[in-house]
């Protein structure tokens, strides 16, 4: 019934969008091929920092750009892997289907403090937190570039742009005309096929993609994934100033879920199915030089089907009687809808002063199954407005200032401001000093969770029930609906420029971040029937001071090869406060981020269509996820990836064959490995692997 209701909602969305598309398609042909605006119109550069196009030297915060060449040279098979390149970023896997990407702080697999956008669509999952990377209806080949804002950016993108923002920008539809087929085959059961067709019909450019991804996950674990994705993207040029863009996609498939509970019988190996789909429509009008107005609507639906039966558990045996918990029917299912409407206006206010401002409405609806959120549906309504200003005071000074005001139905009203000044001591070099505040709203799981197992128990004599036992309630996390927002205050002193023109591009960032009221769990008195006293509630309790320096560089050599280099030195301190006085009792050197990490990517094109990429990644010791003790750290990881590719033509079709050898230095432990090993005989280890890729572009 529930899904039927949801399907109706989707049809409604479709019905709303269809007339808009139809109107646009019918839009007047009464236009000349070219407007005079084309002679004086603006061409954006980067957008992610302030929602305004600006050269990186003018941006108030550090922005890393992963471009198409880096994506191809890295040999990455999945999108999360790319972020190993970015200074300060941590990439970990809970299992083969659950990746996590975080920055400066990694407490668990959900990485709730990161915002991820795809072409302006926020794909952060409000139900649980984190990103459902494996069912995103986008392939790595769809991506043109990724702009990564390293630092809080709630002033531009709102709550959850807390530690950083990943802005994935897909390739424009006109760039991928024709048909292409790609397949990857390799170790760990990797069997992937991607199909793409792009074309044009009058003023409509479109691209249709489909993907079939199979892999067996980590070598010794029950964590396979089988994913099918499909998407259609298009852009209709209404006239010389108006564009209507649309995007719709679906991703779904089963995953193996391995027992990860301290009571094995509660969580047997099983299969779950994930589904997500989205519809996005954006109208944008260019008003003049640097001026535009855009209205965007999107809907994202995410569904997790996970029902299973626990195994019988014998709790005690005495005098020939066994106290047995009967198998329990468990529903960890979950769905979430996000409806988002936003207006943005970019305007030149005066000479040297421009703004991006706007506002919007959002409704997040979250439902959790009987054992996750007690089958309740929670709504979180958002009203927000934002303004970012860029004031080119006078060369060399540039000021960026902005704020976002958000009113959530669950957590109230907050303002996230940012102000920064850039001193441009040459056209290609600047020093920036920026301060900002940002927030993260609790996920609906943290807000209203009722994560528990419950069912009957009986007393057995042999296989015969002799008397009913007490009802069992194995409680874990509970959301009290009293939690507030997490807060960060961040200061950044940075340099960006080309100290050796055409050779070296360099960005240095020194930062100091105070994170307060971070959500964590606190144990509470067990309720009657609790099996192992792990009952806890979410509270705003954690405080961190994170300080450090990051360096990013791109070198260009005489032979046109390139070296990308990233380094981060992070001091991550957890602050223990007296719960009564609020005073700092102790500062603990936390391992929630590696003290040192660096990445190298060398990219070279040879003659005859050959190209090569060499990626090396180092991550210092880091505390593993979900481990309560700071001494449970993962040893340093050194990872080397190699890729060799060749492009050539066969009967005028372009063919690319690539061989990628990954992690050739030997196996290492993933982030989710160090919970009590007595419970988990099988570790979460990454082994060396190889895959071959063949891509054919047909005329």
């Amino acid at each position, binding site marked *: 019934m529930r899904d039927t209701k949801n399907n109706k909602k989707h049809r409604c969305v479709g019905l709303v969008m269809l007339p808009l598309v139809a109107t646009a398609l019918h839009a007047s042909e009464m236009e*000349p091929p*070219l407007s*005079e605006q084309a*002679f004086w119109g603006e061409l954006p550069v980067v957008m992610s920092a302030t929602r305004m196009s600006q050269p990186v030297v003018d941006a108030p915060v550090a922005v890393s750009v992963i471009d198409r060449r880096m994506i191809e040279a890295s040999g990455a098979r999945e999108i999360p892997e790319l972020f190993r390149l970015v200074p300060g970023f941590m990439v970990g896997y809970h299992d083969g289907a659950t990746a996590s990407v975080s920055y400066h702080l990694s407490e668990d697999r959900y990485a709730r403090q990161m915002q991820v956008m795809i072409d302006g669509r926020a794909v952060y999952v409000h139900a649980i937190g984190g990103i459902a990377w494996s069912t995103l209806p986008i392939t790595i080949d769809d991506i043109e570039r990724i702009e990564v804002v390293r630092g809080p950016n709630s002033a531009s993108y709102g709550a959850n742009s807390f530690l950083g923002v990943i802005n994935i920008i897909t390739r424009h539809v006109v760039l991928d005309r024709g048909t292409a087929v790609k397949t990857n085959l390799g170790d760990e059961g990797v069997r992937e096929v991607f199909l793409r067709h792009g074309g044009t019909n009058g003023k409509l450019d479109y691209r249709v993609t489909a993907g079939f991804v199979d892999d067996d996950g980590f070598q010794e674990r029950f964590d396979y994934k089988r994913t099918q994705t499909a998407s259609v993207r298009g852009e209709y040029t209404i006239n010389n100033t108006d564009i209507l863009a649309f995007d719709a996609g679906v991703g779904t498939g089963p995953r193996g879920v391995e027992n990860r509970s301290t009571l094995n019988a509660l969580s047997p190996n099983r299969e779950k199915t994930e589904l997500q789909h989205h519809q996005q429509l954006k109208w944008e009008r260019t008003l003049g030089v640097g001026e535009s107005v855009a209205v965007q609507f999107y809907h994202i639906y995410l569904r997790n089907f996970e029902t299973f039966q626990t195994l019988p558990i014998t709790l005690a045996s005495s005098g020939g009687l066994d106290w047995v918990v009967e198998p329990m029917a468990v529903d960890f299912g979950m769905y979430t809808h996000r409806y988002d409407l936003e207006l943005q206006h970019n305007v030149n206010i005066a000479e040297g002063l421009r703004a991006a401002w706007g506002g919007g409405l959002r409704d997040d609806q979250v439902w959790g199954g009987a054992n996750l959120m007690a089958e309740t549906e929670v709504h979180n309504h958002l009203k927000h407005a934002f303004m970012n200003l860029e004031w080119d005071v006078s060369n060399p000074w540039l000021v960026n200032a902005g704020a976002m005001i958000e009113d959530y139905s669950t957590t109230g009203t907050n303002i996230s401001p940012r102000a920064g000044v850039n001193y441009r001591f040459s056209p290609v070099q600047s020093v920036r000093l920026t301060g900002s505040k940002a927030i993260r709203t609790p996920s609906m799981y943290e807000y209203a969770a009722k994560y528990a197992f419950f069912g009957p128990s009986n007393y057995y004599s042999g296989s015969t029930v002799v008397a009913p036992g007490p009802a069992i309630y194995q409680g874990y996390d509970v959301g009290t609906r009293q939690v507030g927002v997490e807060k960060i205050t961040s200061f950044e002193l940075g340099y960006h420029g080309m100290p050796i023109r055409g050779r070296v591009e360099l960005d240095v960032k020194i930062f100091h971040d105070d994170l307060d009221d971070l959500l964590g769990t606190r144990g509470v008195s067990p309720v009657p029937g609790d099996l192992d006293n792990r009952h806890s509630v979410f509270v705003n309790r954690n405080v961190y001071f994170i300080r450090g320096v990051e360096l990013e560089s791109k070198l260009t050599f005489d032979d046109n090869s390139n070296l990308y280099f990233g380094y981060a030195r992070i001091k991550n301190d957890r602050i223990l406060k007296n719960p009564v006085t609020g005073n700092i009792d102790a500062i603990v050197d936390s391992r929630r981020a590696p003290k040192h990490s660096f990445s190298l990517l060398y990219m070279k094109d040879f003659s005859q269509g050959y190209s090569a990429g060499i990626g090396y990644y180092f991550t210092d010791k880091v505390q593993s996820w979900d481990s309560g003790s700071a001494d449970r750290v993962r040893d340093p990881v050194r990872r080397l990836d190699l890729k060799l590719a060749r492009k050539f033509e066969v009967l005028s079709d372009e063919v690319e064959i690539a061989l990628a050898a990954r992690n050739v230095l030997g196996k290492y432990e993933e982030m989710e490995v160090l919970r009590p090993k007595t419970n988990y005989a099988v570790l979460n280890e990454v082994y060396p692997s190889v895959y071959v890729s063949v891509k054919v572009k047909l005329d």
Partner: protein
Amino acid sequence: MGILALLFSATAHARLLLITSQDSPIYQEFQRGVLGALVKGGVDEMDVRSADDIALLDLTPYSAIIIAGFDAAKALAGRDLLNKSLIYTMLPLSSYEWLHDNGMLMPQHKLLYIDQPPRRYVQLVRSAMPETAAIGYLHGETSAAYSDEIKKIVDVAKLHLIQADLVTSNKLSNLLKNVFADSDAVLLLPDPFFYNRRVVQEVLLASFRHKRPLVVYSESFLKAGAMLALFSTPEQIGRQTAEMFNCLGRPCYSAIAQRSAPKYFSVMVNEVVARQMGIKSKSAEELQRYLESVETALPR
């Protein structure tokens, strides 16, 4: 937009109407150019209106109308404009031709279009990079109209021309790679295809990857990463429009043609890009002076 009335001396008896497509900064700059160059005494009174403000306007009192921009021209289509001096301006040539083909123009009029003569771009490339041997020309459907003219100019200059039609290509990246690899500089002229910013990004990316400069038609394109730009500002177009008006019905130093290309233009050099590409270019001022001297030497 309200009416801006300017009173000039009463030696002449012209009442001028200036219609702009919009009341936006571009047209305000254009208007400043017009006002700065109108000969005092040439008009009794001038009214300024935007295209969406003329539906009910009685045109009878006006002896001359300057129609600036496509929307302005479209708004006047079908109105009785006989016996009036008309100047269409601020129009790309392709827009003008579209208006003409759709019967939206009066038979008697003058035109000042905003497309630069292609020869200027070739002269600019040769002046900025004298060692140039091959010029690439990336065009779309609209800018393909210049292909033949560019070919002739390049042939006369004994250069090699590499043309590529981006619109019909299924492999844009490959096409760009080939053009940039074989050219010393690559030229783009206005085309709706390039108004798509992501296509522009791909072109700019190819320019950077191959260290081959782009020569373009707008300041914003230059700021985005092209090396050389040649264009007329709205103020320059306004100035020339006023000069055309000044010559209507009276003897002038040079007769005005039915169709005129921009006489005034600006050259800009993105020195950052030039340095990144290892190109030692002359300054924008030097290049502009050179091009102006060439223009002066051309037969009138």
